[in-house]
């Protein structure tokens, strides 16, 4: 079930990336292409097969997981700045790309690397599932959830205003989907409280968040294309 969801998410993200290629070639909003490519890569690295393959190249001590963390941080920094700017939320943009935001990111990244290298991480295992549990691993995992959650908190107020305001229906629906994805990221902060018998909820929430965010971003692009077509048809 989770595997299907993961591959489906990857497939959708790759499709969305491919759709952006023509406009990226034309030089329109290349950042969105980079963003979709990054999301696809993030998903790819979180799936067992590709993870084990790439980690084997990197020396079989789960460096791939650290790489994934850093790529996720980059993805969220980029997405956070773009989305905050798009939804007219200068406060959110400052909180992510300003001094405070970059300090939060820097601290998270340094701490992530510190806790990673403080652990014995030998033996490739996706999501570090088979490593010996311990406080260092818990903190490492929490840090990985913290930064996306931080970005989500910065974005939600500005987006919420937008979803409630009048505008094209498709755009509002897409924004709401993106908002749902961000909301799930905040929900993921309470993962340690989920009882062990229900751990399947964690990947479900993670992939749903990624899927909702990707579909939301794709939907915004779609709403723009639809609006352009209709206005061209009218004139």
């Amino acid at each position, binding site marked *: 079930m989770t595997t299907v969801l993961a591959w489906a998410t990857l497939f959708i993200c790759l499709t969305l990336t491919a759709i952006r290629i023509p406009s990226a070639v034309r030089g329109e*909003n290349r950042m969105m292409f980079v963003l979709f490519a990054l999301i696809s890569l993030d998903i790819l690295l979180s799936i067992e097969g590709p993870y084990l393959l790439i980690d084997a190249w990197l020396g079989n001590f789960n460096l791939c997981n650290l790489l994934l963390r850093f790529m996720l941080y980059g993805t969220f920094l980029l997405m956070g700045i*773009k989305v905050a700017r*798009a939804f007219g939320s200068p406060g959110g943009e400052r909180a992510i790309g300003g001094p405070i935001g970059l300090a939060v990111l820097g601290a998270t990244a340094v701490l992530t690397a510190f806790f990673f290298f403080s652990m014995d991480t030998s033996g490739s295992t996706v999501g570090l599932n088979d490593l010996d549990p311990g406080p260092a691993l818990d903190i490492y995992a929490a840090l990985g959830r913290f930064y996306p959650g931080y970005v989500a908190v910065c974005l939600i107020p500005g987006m919420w205003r937008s979803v409630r305001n*009048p505008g094209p229906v498709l*755009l509002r629906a897409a924004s709401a989907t993106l908002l749902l994805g961000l909301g799930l990221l905040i929900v993921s902060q309470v993962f340690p409280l989920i009882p062990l018998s229900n751990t399947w909820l964690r990947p479900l929430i993670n992939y749903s968040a990624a899927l909702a965010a990707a579909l939301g971003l794709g939907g915004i692009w779609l*709403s723009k294309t639809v609006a352009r077509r209709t206005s061209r048809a009218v004139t």
Partner: protein
Amino acid sequence: MSLPSKAFQRWLHGIAPNTSTADVCRFSGVKRTTLAQQLVRGKVAESSLVSISRAFDMNPFDALAQFEAYAALRGTPVLPTDAELVSQVSTMDLLRAVVERSGPRDGIPPLVLEETPHPSSVRNWVDAIDDGELRHRVSAATGIAPQNFSAHLTANRLPPELALATSRAAGVGPAGGLVASGLVTEAEAGWPPGARRDALDRMTEGELALLSGERLQALGKALRRHEHELDHTNRIWENLG
């Protein structure tokens, strides 16, 4: 509220006993599926009734009056107040009237008022009959939340039953809201021809200028709001599209 299916079918049989539903739809331009759905649900929209009565050369206002819920429309028609009449003059026509009054000039054709309804006709009508407590009374009488009532005014629409309740609460004739929402024309509602123009001419220059100013102000605000929304949308598309 809408019209009960049974009563509607009895009425339809009365005006077109030998016409099939398909033909009724063809003559009136009401979509067949739409009418079928409304009949099945037991709620026929007033607008369907209006289209059908027009197709059969019947006054839709009188047709509506045959239904129990619209009994208020029966009897001698109550003439609209001057404020109501002027509220149904479009903002652009008001401005043209200001220009026309300021001094007759050669080469400008005399002002002919646009047909009802105009783009802010519902809000202007409610404002024209509002004594300050009207919204409160409508909401008490019908149970509609004040913000929903406001939403109707902003969208320039007014469901017929709400239009009726509003005129009742304001103590004016029952037709005004139906004209303002565009369900029936002023002629169908029995407003004398030229009544709006006469009411406009009865206004003093000062009243006319003040009212036009208010309307222009409201129009400017609505346009600014719309532009603001467009900016917002374009900004999202520019960054994420």
